[in-house]
Each structure stands twice: as structure tokens, then as C-alpha cells.
């Protein structure tokens, strides 16, 4: 192998492609090809499993975040405990991993859903211990009461929205809206979000004043690329109020 490598298929073949996939270095289209191969090719899936197991040691390198008791009791009060209550993960590892697909597989979005999403959203801010600077939190419920997303917004307007259950969008784009309280209640777009991974958004400075307790966040289904009218479609799939933790 030379000092530079422009090939799409590395010298080491599938074992290396699997490593690249688990490491998360592939671009979106390469990643999607690899994900399909995991489904269809047992040999490739084995290679991926090899790396997932071996590289799992990295997860222990990141600093563990333990939310304070107060935050946990609020989170628990804010969610309706399902029959199989989520297990508390007091030492869930969290670093800058939030967009890493492998990290999401470790955390297991399906296993502890909402509580994990809350924890991730809060850990993102690293300010859960300081109540005066605590972010506003919203649980965006779907029709039927199932939680769809958890979002947290810091005082500076940095927002993270985390899926709390597995959603599919059927070719449509999901758009996030801020619905201010009071007379200026026209929904304002905060941009497109992903159904399967956390998304970090910076709320535009002009909209930060509208980020208040009792304002709401909503997610709508839009044509690919997002709403062209500046207003959400009637297809609102999840909505929830911002509350102080």
C-alpha cells in the first residue's frame, strides 16, 4: 500500500472495510452500502462483529457522566414508566460520541429508549449539576403517547434532539419547529432532523428569546428538503412542551 490511498476497496478487503464501518470513517453513501451488506452477507456481518467487540474497549476511555439525583427524579417524573421500566444507567459513557453509529449500537436505543435519550440530551450540556444553568427539556410525544424525541436547549441556544424510539420517515424529511408561547405563536423552523440519530442545532439568535418554559417543540413530516412555505405541514408527528428540569 502506498503512502496515499485513493481506492474505494482497500488492500485488506472486507475485514478492513468492516473496520472502517465500525470506526465510523466512511461517508454517508459508503456507510449505507456497508449497512446493507451487514444485513445480507453473514461473512461481512462477522467481520463487523469482530471490530465491534474489539473496539468496544474505546468506550471505556470516555469520561462517565453521572447525572445528579435531582435530575434523575425529574426525568423519571417527566416520563411515564413503561411496563418494563428503563434500567438506570448511572455511569453511561458519554463523550463526543453522540454521532457515532457504533456508539448508538452500544447504548442500545431500543433497550432503554426514553431514559437514555434524556440522559444523552442532558449529558451533552454537561451542566446538569448546576440548576441555574440547566437546559430546558422537552419530551416530544407521538400520537398515542409514545415518546418520539427528547430535546434539550441550553441558555445560549444550543439544542440537541435525540430520538427516543425508532422512527421511520418514508422518504419524507423531519423538520423541527419552535412554537413560542403567547401571541407570537407562529411556529418557527429550527431545521431538519434525523430520525435515527441525535442532531445538534444552534437556535438562531433571533429565536433565542422565544425559547422559554411552556414554549413547545414539534416535529413535522415535510417533503424532502423541508417545508417550502415556512410553516409546518399538517403532518405533525411529535410535540412537547419545554420545561425547566
Amino acid at each position, binding site marked *: *500500500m*502506498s*503512502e*496515499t*490511498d*485513493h481506492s474505494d476497496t*482497500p*488492500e*485488506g478487503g472486507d*475485514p*478492513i472495510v468492516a*473496520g*472502517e464501518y465500525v*470506526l*465510523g*470513517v*466512511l*461517508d454517508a453513501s459508503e456507510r449505507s452500502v456497508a449497512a446493507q451488506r451487514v444485513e445480507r452477507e453473514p461473512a461481512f456481518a462477522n467481520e463487523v462483529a*469482530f471490530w465491534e*467487540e*474489539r*473496539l*468496544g*474497549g*474505546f468506550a*471505556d*476511555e*470516555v469520561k462517565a457522566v453521572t447525572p445528579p439525583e435531582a435530575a434523575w427524579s425529574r426525568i423519571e417524573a417527566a416520563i411515564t414508566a413503561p411496563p418494563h421500566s428503563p434500567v438506570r444507567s448511572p455511569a453511561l459513557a458519554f*463523550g*463526543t*460520541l*453522540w*454521532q*457515532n453509529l*457504533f*456508539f448508538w449500537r452500544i447504548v442500545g436505543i431500543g433497550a432503554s429508549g426514553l431514559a437514555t435519550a434524556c440522559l444523552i440530551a442532558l449529558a451533552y450540556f454537561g451542566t446538569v449539576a448546576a440548576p441555574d444553568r440547566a437546559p430546558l427539556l422537552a419530551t416530544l410525544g407521538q400520537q398515542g403517547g409514545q415518546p418520539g424525541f427528547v430535546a434539550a436547549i441550553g441558555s445560549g441556544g444550543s439544542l440537541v434532539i435525540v430520538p427516543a424510539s425508532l422512527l421511520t420517515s418514508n422518504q419524507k424529511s423531519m423538520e423541527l419547529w419552535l412554537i413560542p408561547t403567547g401571541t407570537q405563536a407562529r411556529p418557527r423552523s429550527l431545521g431538519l432532523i434525523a430520525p435515527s440519530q441525535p442532531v445538534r442545532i444552534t437556535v438562531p439568535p433571533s429565536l433565542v428569546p422565544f425559547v422559554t418554559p411552556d414554549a413547545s417543540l414539534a416535529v413535522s413530516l415535510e417533503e424532502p428538503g423541508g417545508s417550502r412555505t415556512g410553516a409546518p405541514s399538517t403532518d405533525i408527528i411529535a410535540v412537547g412542551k419545554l420545561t425547566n428540569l
Partner: protein
Amino acid sequence: VVAAEQQERLKTCLGELEERHSAVIRSAFLDGVTYEQLAQRMEVPLGTMKSWIRRGLMKLRTCLER
């Protein structure tokens, strides 16, 4: 116990790599960045970054299999 062993093994094997190779592999995983982003961050051509990571992965795999 198994997790601790895995972590120890990973650490040992990363230690056997060229330093820049292990550094970019660690960074790729922990920061969740793509080849493209890593290349920009380290200010090297994309092909160079691919070469570093792929070489690192090949050597890492051989070591982890032992």
C-alpha cells in the same frame, strides 16, 4: 472482566502501531468523524488519511486476532 481484558488488548495492540496511525484511529472512533473530516482536521490529503487508517486497521486486526 472480559471487557477489561478487551480494553487491555486494544491498548496493547494500538501501542504496536505507528503513533500517527493509532492516533487517527482513536480520534476517528472517539470523535465520530469521517475520513474527510479527519483529513481536514489533520491537514493531510484524503488519500493519506485513508492510507494511515487502513494500514493501522490491518496491523491492528492481526494483533487483535492473536
